[in-house]
């Protein structure tokens, strides 16, 4: 399994920050595009800019996608929701972790949120865990590309190539189950959400073939 570069980790952190800024309570491929642009120091961001995609315009476009209902509008965070009820989430997290330990808390989070047949006591997510990362397929594609190209470290270019591949590949059927639908609904995503990077890039008239080719060229792999 290829490692992510520091720059790629920075892209992920900035993608989370961008999701937060939009009031989105999940991390999707569309936020990764924003993360690449905000990080700004990679070949991937230059390629996006060359295709007419810049950070300010992409943020604006995601807000337009929210108006069209393809992504959620701004929603309060769990900490804010609980705060309004007089519960300080951070205090609960700290006191629970101090009492039972990090490992036990991690176990309880998995126990409470895992999918199970009976559905008893199941919650799709908990405020005690970070917002759901819906970029699993992107990371899988990025890893596969890295392996195919013989690259050991995944940087922003491979992440973006993962996004491009994700847009063009249907999500596997195992991703379409009741638990996942509940998870998506719980963060306000519309039914049938499969990532919104496609509509985002489409709004800028980006040709995915050309974008993929440019990324491969940047990676030194030539046009496929």
């Amino acid at each position, binding site marked *: 399994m290829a490692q992510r570069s520091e720059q790629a980790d920075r892209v992920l952190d900035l993608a989370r920050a961008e999701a937060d*800024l*939009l*009031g989105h309570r999940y991390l999707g491929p569309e936020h990764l595009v924003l993360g690449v642009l905000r990080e700004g120091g990679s070949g991937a961001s230059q390629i996006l800019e060359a295709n007419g995609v810049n950070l300010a315009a992409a943020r604006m476009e995601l807000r337009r996608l929210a108006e069209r209902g393809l992504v959620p509008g*701004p*929603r*309060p*965070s*769990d900490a*804010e*929701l*609980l*705060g*309004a*009820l007089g*519960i300080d*989430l951070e205090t*609960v997290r700290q006191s*629970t972790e101090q009492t*039972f*330990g990090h*490992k*036990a*808390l991690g*176990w*309880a*989070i998995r*126990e*409470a*949120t895992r999918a199970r047949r*009976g559905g*008893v*006591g199941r*919650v799709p*997510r*908990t*405020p*005690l865990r970070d917002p759901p990362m819906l970029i699993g397929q992107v990371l899988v594609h990025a890893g596969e590309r890295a392996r195919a190209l013989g690259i050991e470290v995944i940087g922003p270019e491979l992440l973006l190539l993962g996004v491009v591949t994700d847009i063009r590949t249907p999500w596997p059927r195992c991703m379409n189950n009741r638990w996942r639908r509940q998870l998506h609904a*719980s963060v306000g995503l519309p039914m049938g959400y499969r990532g919104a990077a496609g509509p985002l890039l489409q709004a800028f008239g980006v040709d995915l073939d050309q974008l993929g080719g440019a990324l491969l060229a940047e990676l030194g792999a030539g046009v496929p």
Partner: protein
Amino acid sequence: MSEAAASSEVTQVAAATSSQDPEVGLAAVAALRGLVEVLEALQVENARAKGWSWQQIAARLGVTKQAVHHKYAGRRFGFRR
């Protein structure tokens, strides 16, 4: 929109929790449930590790023995301390 403006926007939405907007009120309840489920799993596991019976645990939780047993027993219960 600036970062501060976006943040104050969601804070305002959150402040409306005690209002009658179901969109926000229900989200707050869901967040609370997400918290409660984790705390319950932790406490039940802790009680079992300390030798409590399902009957005793159910009594404290105010549910039937069957309910708590159905929810927690018969699975890879607990973790290695």
